[in-house]
């Protein structure tokens, strides 16, 4: 067990290292002169040279990476070209908003997703099951940003129940959380259904039903508890994936999170900020996945972590 956790952490560090190389290289992959592209056509030679010096682009590549990596380890992600503030400060300012929305969306996703999944499994191969599964495929097909536009159109513009966009209060959070949550719920409901269907075919379920046990208790205590562990794992992954999904949906609602920050940075070619947000999102994702894997191994004694390949 200890061995597995150590191995998992080590492979996580390798991935984080690779990620830092990737974000570091972003700036070097730009076709043409990156500094000129960042500053635009009207930049003067002095401006270009000064930025080149500031970014250390005159040094050898390896030295540049080491400078970058040691900065990252100290929490220094560079300075935004647009605002002149440290990238890490900007991200720290925005992250609470993103985290808040991710958690709220997760709650929505869990309630809708698990609810529908259990229902579909209970009424397997009936029209109810069919409707839920069709709904879930449909939900997978809706672009998140369009669902966002639709709920704004209906609930803000026409019904006037919620503010259109821009705030970060509880009331502002309802629509974005609902949008993201519904999107996630679709995958979760499929997984819950699949797990429940499998568990419900077990002998002990038949025994429980045969002895006249209340169906609710059979479903929730006997069946659902056994499906919970894989579901928890997926919820963890979804939480991490939410950070990606949120990038686009934040944009619709003008939610001042890390995603909005990243997209603004791309539009204005603010490369230190692009590197910073990309690295940040990736790092959070990797850390959450590792945490889930470790928890998973701790929670479920049946998992044979000695043979599991450390990914």
């Amino acid at each position: 067990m200890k061995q597995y956790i150590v191995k998992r952490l080590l492979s996580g560090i390798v991935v984080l290292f690779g990620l830092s190389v990737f974000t570091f290289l972003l700036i070097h992959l730009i076709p043409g002169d990156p500094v000129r592209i960042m500053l635009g056509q009207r930049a003067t030679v002095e401006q270009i040279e000064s930025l080149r010096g500031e970014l250390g682009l005159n040094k050898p590549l390896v030295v540049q990476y080491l400078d970058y990596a040691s900065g990252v380890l100290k929490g220094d992600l560079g300075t935004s070209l647009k605002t002149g503030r440290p990238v890490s400060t900007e991200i720290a300012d925005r992250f609470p908003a993103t985290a808040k929305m991710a958690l709220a969306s997760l709650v929505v996703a869990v309630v809708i997703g698990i609810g529908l999944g259990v229902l579909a499994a209970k009424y397997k191969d009936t029209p109810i099951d069919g409707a839920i599964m069709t709904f879930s495929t449909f939900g997978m097909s809706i672009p998140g940003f369009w669902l966002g536009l639709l709920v704004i159109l209906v609930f803000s513009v026409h019904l006037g129940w919620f503010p259109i966009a821009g705030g970060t209060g509880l009331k502002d959070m309802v629509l974005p959380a609902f949008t993201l949550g519904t999107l996630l719920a679709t995958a979760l409901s499929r997984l819950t259904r699949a797990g429940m269907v499998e568990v419900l075919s077990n002998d002990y379920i038949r025994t429980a039903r045969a002895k006249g046990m209340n169906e609710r208790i059979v479903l929730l205590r006997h069946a659902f508890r056994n499906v919970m562990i894989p579901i928890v794992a997926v919820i963890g992954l979804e939480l991490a994936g939410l950070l990606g999904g949120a990038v686009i949906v934040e944009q619709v609602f003008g939610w001042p999170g890390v995603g909005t920050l990243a997209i603004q940075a791309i539009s204005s070619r603010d490369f230190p900020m692009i590197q910073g947000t990309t690295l940040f999102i990736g790092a959070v994702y990797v850390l959450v996945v590792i945490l889930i894997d470790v928890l998973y191994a701790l929670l479920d004694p049946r998992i044979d972590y000695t043979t599991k390949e450390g990914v």
Partner: protein
Amino acid sequence: MFWSRQWSVPRLELWEKIMQQKKAKYSFLMMLCIVLLGIIGPWIAPHDPTKTYYEAFMQGPSKDFWLGTDAIGRDILSRMLYGTRVTLTVALLASVMTFVAGTLIGVTCAYLGGIVDNLIMRIMDIMLALPGIVLALAIVAVLGPSQENAMIAIGISSIPAFSILIRGAALSIKQSGYVEASRSIGSSNWWIITRQFIPNISNVLIVYTTMFIGSAILGTSALGFIGLGAQPPTPEWGTMLNEGKNYLREAWWLATFPGLAITAVVFTVYLLGDALRDIFDPKS
């Protein structure tokens, strides 16, 4: 090779199977209609998609403009019909890119194993540390926003997931006796890969590729929506939604119809993918 005789026989069976299963049949026919619409769209469009009708700014759906007009008086229906081609082309080319690179990487890794496999898979893991859309955004950030770059970004960003899935499928072929047998009679690597690996994972390839086309359409329109994909005045669906999002209060149709089109197409693709999976693997 794909067109060799060994392969053409199961292909015919697949066609028959699609026609026998209701879900597969209808989603396939619907997909054909959508592709057809993409091809003939420009000819059946009632108006010029870039022409401004000065007497009709932001008009709701009417007899002349079935789905209304946008903020600068262009016909939404015509723009959407042209956009079908744009969105489908970008998504298809991106998927072809994913398919070719992903299959190559996945099969090669599974076949060779060892250090090459390990190294490439670690690189894929690193790319997977970024959610697909974030990876696509990073690539667009480097290349600059345009329709071609959006396509490249979507294509590349799906390669890691695709190649890992293909590698998994190919690994199970590697264990089989016939590969061992071929190798022992001295077949070349290339022969084994193209005649044994690829035909035997073709089912998986078809299903995954279909699913990836769906997500490529979503990705393409998402990039268009945030202004980093096809640039105006190109009538791409996501780009159209981006233009429409500022007029929610005045013109609901701007932000409705293109989204409906995206959803309908992706839904069809996913249904088809689901149906194909049922055909190939009746157990699940």
